[in-house]
Structures are given as structure tokens and as C-alpha cells.
């Protein structure tokens, strides 16, 4: 059980979800592109305003496949945010690609376009420059989408949006504008409001048919879209990343309840923002008029704190019954990015070990996570706001 899930006790499967599971069981179509997984893919495409979506085992695997489908591999580099992207960095490395880190925006905590540009320019000085930009919707959306999209076009480097929390977030009223060339969604645990923790699930979403074709055969053991289900035939490179019917059943149910849950979370977030107004020590992740986030989690910063004080704050919140977690450590200098396994996968350690990124460091040391569902509790967020405020004095 992941630490994040263990800390955040969420809602349970509905009767509809269980009925879908039992129906799939009786039909005997438990996997290999079953009706529910295919139906989920279609619904996710609609949610994201895209032509194509493919349900995948999980989000990290979706990101690895995204890079492979874009023909990145051993010896290549990709720009990633230096905060909130550990699974992204590891998934990138699993494809043989070395992450090159860039800073995040000060208020939103997602990839900063200016810093990403600088990382691309640094990369251009080495023989193999970065061949992809990976933006991470760590807090339910990505900021700087316009600038990141423009940078991607200007440099001819595809933008991949990885959404561990924020499947279906919208930019300027359009989910399609928030996809980049290819989006890798994580649909497990807390990603879909209303989901209640499908446990695992991911998806690849794109508007580009060539990319879709590549993703398709890569996720389906090398079978092309026209190759059917036979074991022979036209086989290309690929692995088995197909989603089975069980998470598909849970996620289909979650999608049905998502609009209502999302609206409730939005109201809760507005109320919490109001409740914390004037609290200089506490700062929720910035909103952006252009963005409609999907808050799988609620992120805030204990402004000015160091990691020790932030950890004390988290303990004080837990003492008050608030399911809180410290934001993850910064990626630069992480031992896993220079260990033997990492170097075996990519050929070299991540080249940022000695660099510093002030916004990423601030989010990593001061960030606090709450599960998104606490925003939608029937009793409202007044008690939550009070707990967040009062715990500051204990930290």
C-alpha cells in the first residue's frame, strides 16, 4: 500500500462498480482489450477532448511508453521539473532517457517555461540535446501551458504532459490544450475525483494518429492496430501494458461521478482559500484564470519554513485528524538518480546533482499535501481551515 494512499482513507467501491466487476468476471473477458478497458479509453478521450486514448496499467508505465513511442531511448535526454516528479524521472530513466531538470513556477509548483528553455539550451551544448519536455500536473494542473507549448513548437521538441494528479485538467477552457503532443495520465488512487482509489490505472492520450499507432503497438505486445489479436502476424516492439477489466470497471464508475465530485472539490477549494485569506504563513498552490485544475490533491506551502518545521507542521495536522503528508523531496541530488541501477538504465547519472532550483527547493521543503477528497466533505472545510491555521503555532 503506498504511503500516500495509506494516509488518505478514501471512499469505497460503489454498487455500480462492483456490478461491472462481476459482469466482467462472468463474461470471462478479463483482459486483452476487454470491453470495459476499451470503453474506458473512449471515455478518457472524450474527457480530454482528444481523438485517441489508451488505457494502460498505470501512469508511470504510460509515461515510459510515451517516451518510447516518441522514439526516445538510451542516450537521449528529456527536460523534467525538479520537484514533484520522482515517478516521472524514474519512468523516464526506465526508457533509457536521462532527465535534465528545470525549476518550477514559484506559485504553482509546475514546470517553469523559462527554466525549461534554459535546460534545453544547456542540453544543446552537449552532443545529444533534450528530445522531449515533460510537464507534470503535480497539483492538479500545469501552469505556463502557453509558454511551454510555444517552446515545444519553437524547438521542435515534443511536450509530454504527465498527470499524476489532474487527469482531464483544462487550459483556456479546453482539455485538448492541456495535452501537449501526448499526455500520460495516472488514474490510480487519487487522480480522479469520485474515484475512491481504483488502485492502479493510467492512460495515454493524444490527438496525433501516428503517435497513437506507436503507443498502440507498444502497449499491446507489439501487435499493430490492424493486426488483430492473433499471436502471429505483424509484430513490432512492445510490451504488455494493457489494462485489465478490474481497474477499468472502477474507473468507468469514477468517471461517471467525476463532474459532481469535481464541482464539490472546486467549491471546497474556494472556501478553503477564503478561510486561509490573510494567513501569511500558509499559501495554497496558486490558481490561474486560464486553468481549470482537477485537484487530486490539495497542495499548500508553509511559507518560510524549513523541512524540519514543515514536518512538525504535518505531525501537528495529523494530531488534529487531518490526513496530511509532506511534499516529496527535491529530485536534484536524489541518490536514486545516480545509483548503479539508474546509470545502468540510462548510461549516466542525471546531470543536475549539483544544481539548485529555488522554487523546487521551496516546494519540496515547505509543501504539504492533503487528499483532494477532504475538500468535498459534507461538513465543509471550515474545520479544515481552522486546523490548518492552528497547527501553524504548534510547528
Amino acid at each position, binding site marked *: 500500500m503506498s504511503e500516500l494512499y495509506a494516509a488518505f482513507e478514501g471512499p469505497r467501491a460503489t454498487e455500480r462498480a462492483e456490478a461491472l466487476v462481476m459482469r466482467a468476471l462472468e463474461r470471462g473477458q*478479463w483482459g486483452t482489450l476487454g470491453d470495459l478497458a476499451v470503453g474506458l479509453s473512449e471515455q478518457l478521450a472524450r474527457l480530454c477532448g482528444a481523438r485517441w486514448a489508451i488505457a494502460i496499467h498505470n501512469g508511470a508505465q504510460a509515461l515510459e511508453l510515451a517516451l518510447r513511442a516518441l522514439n526516445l531511448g538510451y542516450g537521449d535526454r528529456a527536460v523534467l521539473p525538479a520537484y514533484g516528479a520522482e515517478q516521472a524521472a524514474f519512468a523516464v530513466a526506465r526508457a533509457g532517457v536521462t532527465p535534465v531538470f528545470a525549476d518550477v513556477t514559484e506559485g504553482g509548483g509546475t514546470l517553469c517555461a523559462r527554466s525549461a528553455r534554459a535546460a534545453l539550451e544547456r542540453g544543446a551544448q552537449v552532443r545529444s540535446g533534450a528530445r522531449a519536455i515533460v510537464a507534470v500536473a503535480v497539483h492538479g494542473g500545469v501552469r505556463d501551458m502557453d509558454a511551454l507549448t510555444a517552446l515545444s513548437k519553437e524547438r521542435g521538441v515534443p511536450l509530454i504532459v504527465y498527470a499524476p494528479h489532474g487527469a482531464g485538467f483544462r487550459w483556456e477552457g479546453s482539455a485538448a490544450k492541456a495535452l501537449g503532443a501526448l499526455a500520460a495520465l495516472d488514474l490510480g488512487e487519487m487522480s480522479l475525483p469520485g474515484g475512491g482509489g481504483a488502485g492502479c490505472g493510467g492512460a495515454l492520450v493524444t490527438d496525433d494518429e501516428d503517435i497513437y499507432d506507436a503507443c498502440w503497438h507498444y502497449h499491446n505486445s507489439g501487435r499493430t492496430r490492424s493486426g488483430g489479436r492473433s499471436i502471429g502476424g505483424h509484430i513490432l516492439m512492445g510490451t504488455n*501494458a494493457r489494462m485489465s477489466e478490474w481497474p477499468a470497471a472502477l474507473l468507468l464508475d469514477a468517471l461517471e461521478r467525476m463532474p459532481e465530485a469535481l464541482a464539490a472539490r472546486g467549491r471546497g477549494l474556494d472556501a478553503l482559500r477564503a478561510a486561509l485569506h490573510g494567513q501569511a504563513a500558509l499559501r495554497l498552490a496558486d490558481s490561474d484564470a486560464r486553468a481549470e485544475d482537477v485537484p487530486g490533491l490539495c497542495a499548500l506551502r508553509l511559507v518560510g519554513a524549513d523541512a524540519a518545521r514543515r514536518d512538525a507542521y504535518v505531525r501537528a495536522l495529523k494530531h488534529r485528524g487531518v490526513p496530511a503528508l509532506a511534499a516529496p523531496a527535491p529530485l536534484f541530488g536524489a541518490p536514486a538518480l545516480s545509483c548503479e541501477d539508474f546509470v545502468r538504465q540510462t548510461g549516466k547519472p542525471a546531470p543536475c546533482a549539483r544544481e539548485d532550483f529555488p522554487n523546487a527547493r521551496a516546494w519540496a521543503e515547505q509543501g504539504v499535501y492533503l487528499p483532494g477528497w477532504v475538500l468535498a466533505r459534507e461538513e465543509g472545510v471550515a474545520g479544515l481551515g481552522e486546523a490548518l491555521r492552528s497547527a501553524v503555532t504548534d510547528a
Partner: protein
Amino acid sequence: MPNLALLGGAPVRAQRGEYLRWPTVGDDERDAMRRACARGFFGVGGPESERFARDFAAYCGAAYALPVLSGTTSLELALRALNIGYGDEVIVAPYTFSASITAIAMTGATPVFADIDFETLTLSPSACERAITPRTRAIMAVHLGGRPCDMDALDEIARRHGLPIVEDASHAHGSEWRGKRAGSLGAVAGFSLQVSKNISCGEGGVATTNDRALYERMRALATGYAGGAVPGVEARLGELACALLNARLLRLDADIRRRMRSAAMLTEAFESRPFLSPLRRDARVTRDSLHLYGFRYLPDVLGVPRNLFVRALQAENVCNVDEGYCEPIYDSALFADPMYVQSTGDRFVDPTPRLPGNERAARVEGAWMQHVSLLGEDEDIRAIVRAIDKIADNARELRDHAEGGDGA
């Protein structure tokens, strides 16, 4: 009026038997899934997963098991845990599903093909030894259809060259070599749990080993915890799939007993029919999961090509039969795929000249019945034999059909 069902005659069975449907569902499976739904935790690392890992490891005679997302993933993790990657070579038989190959390529390593023994359809130990180079880092032993490779010979070669054996046991749940189960015959093993397999959960896999250090490495590499010491990417299997597996494991042994009885009946029948050749018997194969009942069809005897014979048998409604891996994998488009090239650095050890055992099995003689064909009663197996004899008795119909240009 033709006699053969393929050409419009009456089939041996008017309808296909229920036992040819897979997977089967019983109260054990229903109860397991209802309980898991009621528990409400669907993520990774829960009680169902722990139970399946413990019970499947014990079933295989292995100390450790790690349920993961797919059989391909289990093999990839096994290789990565052995520190195999870009620039390395792994020896593998070409008569296998492409996942054996792509699992190697996913790590960045290069698959190097060694021929099969066409009488067993598994890796030829002598060919394996000839394929070893200074870059070889492992031998992948594919227990095709559930029949274990010649583990005595492979083990001796592996020890002499200091190489680990990775079992591709995707078909071999419960198979035994000299009384020892697949999953504990090499350094590490990967099993598929995809829906067609003898024990399945839709999509899934499981890696087994007796080596604690290897297990710990696989677990770390498959665990997406924050702050890990190694770059772990979440690859563990969720609770609903594991709940189903816990129920399926209960019926595995009974199914294997039935399949082995059916296979013995078929083998006895095949031995007296000159156009069929069962796989070579080996007393060291003490148990065979029989995911596939492999055999050789000798087309010259009846003058009927393999594809036509197989289609004719399938049409008689008595079994699920297949020509197997007809196209040698080394001739597939896989190795020209830019994604393969990008992953492995364009290294492909082309087996020139063609590997004769594999060519013979793939292009001419190899065939198999899927495991469900063996799950009927004795009378159902006798019906398969009757269908085979019916085809032999009416081979002229097929020859005429082929000469008429309809046999391709």
C-alpha cells in the same frame, strides 16, 4: 457431398463443448471478487497480493514471488534485477512468443537466438552453448507450452560459464523437471497470468526466485515509493487481480491432472498415426502444465499442408488447434522497428544461416492444441482422435481443395 466439416460436411461434434471456453468461473472466483470489492482497497501491496505471493511461491517451491503487471514485466524485472541492460546479450530460443524477446529488448539488452530441438520445441543446449559470447549475461529458458527445457544440460552450461538462467515460465505454472517446479529451476523466473493462461487474472504476471537479494531488487525496481534508493517504477499487481488469482490457484492442480490424462491419451494415439509425431518423451519431465499440447504434423504423409490440416481439425468442433509460431521471429518486422533500434542500439544478432530446428517447427511441422482442448472428459479426447482419423480418411478432399486453389 464432402465429409469434412471444413468443406461443408457434418462435423464430429455439432457444437463446441463448454469445456473449450476459457476462463471458467465458479463460486470460488465469485466469492473472492465480492469479498475484494467489499474490502474496498484496490491498490498494490494489500492482503490479497501478499497471500498470492506467499502461496504461489510455495506452489513453485520458490522462496519468493512478486506479482506484477504482466508476464513481460516479470521477465523484464528479472533481467533488470540481474543488472542486465544496454550492451549485454541474452540467449533465447526463437520459437516463442515475442514477449520473451521484447522483455530483453526493453532492458536495452540484445536477444541472441539459439536453435531449438524440434522434437521438444525448446532451447537446444548445444546450440545455446555455441551462442555464448563474452557479452552474454544470461540464458532465457522458455518452457514452451509448459514443457520444461532440458534443465540438466542448461544448468551445466550455465554453471560452466557463470551465467544465470532466467526461466520464461509463462506457460509452465505447475510444470516439473525431476520433481522440481518451474519457477525454482533457475536463478529467477517470470510467469504470465494473462487471461489465456492456465492460471489467470486478465492481465498479470509473477516473478519467482529463491534468491533473497534478487527478490529485494525486483521489489525495489517494481515499487513506486517516493524516496527510494533505486529508481523504482510501480509495476505491482492490484488487489482485485490478486483476489481472483487466489481463487484460481485452488483449481490449478485438478486442471493439470485432467490435462495430463488427456495428453497421455492423445500421445498414445498420435504415436500410431504416421502423419503425427508427439513431442519426444522425457522421463525427467515429471509434470507438464500443458498450456499447449505441442506436436508435429508431417505434411508429406497425407500430402496435405499443415495449415489445411489444422483448419480441418478446428472445423470438426472438438478442440482448439493452431499452427503455432509460423513466422520465425527473427524474420519479423520487430527488429527493424525504430523503437527496438532505439532501445537496444540497433544490435540484432541475425541467425544466419537460418536455424534449422526452428525453421522446421515454425514453417513446416509445429502445431499445438490449446490447453482447454484437454479439459474435457475421456470421450471428448476420443472425439479429437476420431476427428483426426476422419481427416486422414478424407485427405483427398483436402488435396483436391488445395489443388483447386482454396487451400492457402
